[in-house]
């Protein structure tokens, strides 16, 4: 592998040119990635503020600070913004854009102009979504008909906004698929690709195949409101449950769009900080593809109580359990990578280990929902809310934080304050568990979700959860403040502070616009840590 000089970022690399035009019209995948990161992180904050408002209201069983209607709008905005404006684009379009070309030894993605277009389509999408707030929705992020077709809110506008966001997602996925197929450096065979690439490749396939279906779904919803078409309206012979089938056909695979990139990051970080090759490279690589494929077959498990036949329910339940197997394989492999390693606990590694821990909780609460009889009990209760927050926040968001800490030096040429990073990590870890574990209990006790008001017997869990949310918020705030401080006055970062082997670390920090002076010729895989003829397992 080509070795670059380890001097700290001397020039400003790709950041050298300044002025808004150098950003707005850029075709540099790194700048586009940075723009996506700023935008998605901004929505993470806005969505998070809505979450804190919800938790504030949920301190008391009855409506206290705002009306039920306002609460319902807040949970809809929290969910919709977090899902469509943060968690789906953040890792793929943010970190993915920055690092995919670098990981494969290319100068840019296959279609740089389409890449820029995808960002502006994303901007157009969120502007339309914001425009719909003149008459905000209270349908929940799932927009079930008939309620979403009848409610007096700007549903058609929002539908167009989400359609545009979906188009942005498709363009990104398409770009990555072609990039990974066609622009790998000489010697970069499929089995020498970093596992982040395998994760992103599988993610891109899902984006390309699933997103059009949700596009049509929202188009049909908009048409139902604007033209009165009959697909989901029972009075005209339509079927409201058909909406659910269309919606979940996308929305189940999309959770794998959310998790696979984060898993890719974990597969990068764990070997570096244990100084060991990843255990079971092929298993992790192919399990990403398996998850992508199986994820398309299980959407009905969101609909077990919607009146589907017992046979359909049984098939979906059976298939649902099989997605667990490739996922479990990854967890075992990451843990096995630690065996006989030489492990250090810098902030990227802390978040990576946290991912495994919290995702395990989320994943192991999945069987309760995959099994038919317990799902009938727990569906639409806080148990589900806890399950998806453990997987999406304890999973994806922790993976995102790991990636941000890991690649911060490379992207910015600065280092963050490691001590503050660790303190904020501790607050995040404690706050998260206090906030969300209690929701499992509330759910088992029977507390339904999307309840602005609740029976007094659920109050204890809600108060504890709100306290946890406050701690979590402080931790996240401190973490991002640390990033800001690092940006402004962090010490210069060397080219390879973590002594990692993948290609992006063989460049200065920050990298030059063209990534590599010469396209590297790859001769080994990026996990060749440790001693080749060392002691066997």
């Amino acid at each position, binding site marked *: 592998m080509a070795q670059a000089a380890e001097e700290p970022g001397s020039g400003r690399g790709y950041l050298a040119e300044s002025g808004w035009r150098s950003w707005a019209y850029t075709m540099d995948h790194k700048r586009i990635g940075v723009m996506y990161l700023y935008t998605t992180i901004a929505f993470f904050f806005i969505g998070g503020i809505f979450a804190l408002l919800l938790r504030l209201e949920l301190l008391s069983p009855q409506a206290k600070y705002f009306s*039920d209607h306002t609460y*319902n709008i807040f949970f809809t905005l929290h969910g919709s913004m977090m899902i469509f404006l943060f968690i789906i684009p953040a890792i793929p379009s943010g970190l993915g854009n920055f690092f995919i070309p670098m990981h494969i030894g290319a100068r840019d993605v296959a279609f740089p102009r389409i890449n820029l277009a995808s960002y502006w389509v994303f901007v157009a999408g969120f502007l339309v979504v914001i425009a719909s707030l003149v008459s905000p929705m209270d349908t929940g992020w799932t927009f*079930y*008909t*008939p*309620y979403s077709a*009848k409610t007096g809110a700007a549903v058609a506008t929002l539908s167009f906004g989400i359609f545009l966001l979906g188009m942005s997602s498709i363009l990104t996925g398409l770009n990555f698929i072609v990039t990974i197929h066609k622009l790998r450096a000489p010697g970069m065979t499929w089995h020498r690709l970093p596992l982040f690439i395998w994760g992103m490749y599988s993610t891109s396939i899902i984006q390309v195949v699933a997103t059009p279906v949700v596009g049509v779904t929202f188009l049909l919803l908009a048409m139902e409101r604007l033209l009165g078409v009959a697909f989901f309206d*029972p009075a005209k012979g339509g079927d*409201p449950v058909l909406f659910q089938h269309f919606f979940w056909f996308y929305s189940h695979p999309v959770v794998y769009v959310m998790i696979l990139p984060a898993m890719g990051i974990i597969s990068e970080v764990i070997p570096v900080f244990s*100084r060991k*090759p*990843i*255990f079971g*490279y092929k298993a992790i690589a192919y399990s990403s593809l398996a998850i992508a494929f199986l994820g398309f077959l299980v959407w009905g498990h969101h609909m077990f109580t*919607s*009146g589907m036949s017992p046979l359909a329910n049984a098939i979906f*339940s059976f298939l649902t*359990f099989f997605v*667990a*197997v490739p996922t479990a*394989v990854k967890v075992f*492999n990451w*843990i*096995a990578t630690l065996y*006989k*390693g*030489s*492990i250090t606990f810098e902030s990227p590694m802390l978040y990576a280990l946290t991912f495994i*821990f919290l995702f*395990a909780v989320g994943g192991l609460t999945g*069987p*309760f929902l*995959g*099994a*038919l*009889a*317990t799902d*009938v*009990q727990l*569906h*639409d*209760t806080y148990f589900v809310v806890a399950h998806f927050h453990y997987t999406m926040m304890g999973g994806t968001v922790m993976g995102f934080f790991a990636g941000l800490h890991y690649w911060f030096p490379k992207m910015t040429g600065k280092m963050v304050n490691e001590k503050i990073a660790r303190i904020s990590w501790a607050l995040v870890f404690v706050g998260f568990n206090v906030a969300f574990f209690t929701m499992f209990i509330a759910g*088992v*006790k029977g507390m*339904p979700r*999307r*309840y602005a*008001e*609740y*029976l007094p*017997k659920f109050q204890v869990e809600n108060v504890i959860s709100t306290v946890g949310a406050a701690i979590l918020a402080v931790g996240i705030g401190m973490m991002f403040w640390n990033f800001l401080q690092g940006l402004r006055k962090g010490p210069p970062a060397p080219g390879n502070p973590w002594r990692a082997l993948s290609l992006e670390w063989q460049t200065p920090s920050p990298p030059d616009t063209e990534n590599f002076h010469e396209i590297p010729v790859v001769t080994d895989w990026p*996990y*060749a*840590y*440790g*001693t080749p003829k*060392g*002691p*066997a*397992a």
Partner: protein
Amino acid sequence: MDNVLAFGAASAQAARVDALFVMITVIGGFFFFLTQGMLIYFAVRYRRRLPDRDNETPRITGNHLLEFFWVLIPSIVVVAIFYYGWRVYTDQRIPVGGATEVYVNARQWLYEIKYPDGRTAINEIRVPAGRPVKFILSASDVIHGFYLPDFRVKMDMIPGRVTTLWVEPDRPGRYQIFCTVYCGTGHSNMLAQLVVMSPDAYAEWSARHEEAGEEKEHEPLAVRGARVAKNAGCLNCHPIGGAAKVGPDWKGLFGSNVPLEGGASATADEEYLRESIVDPGARIVKGFPNVMPTYKTTLSKEDVDAVVEYIKTLK
């Protein structure tokens, strides 16, 4: 009835669901402590001791036998969980003969109950203990949910369709019913009760043809009205002072002059209020939608009078 964690099951079927829940918890707990225990153990045991010997870690890249087993064993475990979950579920879905049938129709934001003998109720279902009950569910406007946490069952209520749910309550008690599909502003207030009565009490009640609410002969009318108004869902739509809701405010309503749709106006006297309860579309207050359901068959004349008396006290 309160339930702590997974217990307080109100039927044998619910107890079977609890047993499945416990089984999944034990299996999940086992795998959690096994994997995360190893994670923590390895993190501690293999932490870096000597910085300059970082390169001496063994280049272990896999172990086919280990990987084979940790694919095989989880696969077997998940199939077992699937099977158990499926069996308990199938028992839940197969209705037992001799069930009492109750029709439940949801609309924003209450449950309308209709018994086969024609009796109706709002937000309260009465059944005898020891016999299966089959709920025949539908909805008028949007999708609602019908969740009995103590029985560990729920089913969506879908406009244009009929879905069914059955339970076999073991013992008398009052059990909570929640709406679990988001249906609008009143979603979290669509509370109803399943009242399971001993067979004798149920027989007596059936014979008396009581309608909604409990039989309390000697309570003051306004107090009865307050209770009926709460149980029949009136307060989900009508505020008493406070934040605006779907229906007109009851505070200060009695005796006031009410502008109507169409330009006329009316005095909110006993007759107007009575008419508004049994024939709500007759004279709509200006600026409010014509969405109130009629209580003509669900509230007795005494209950209607009681609610009017209650409204009179809200100055």
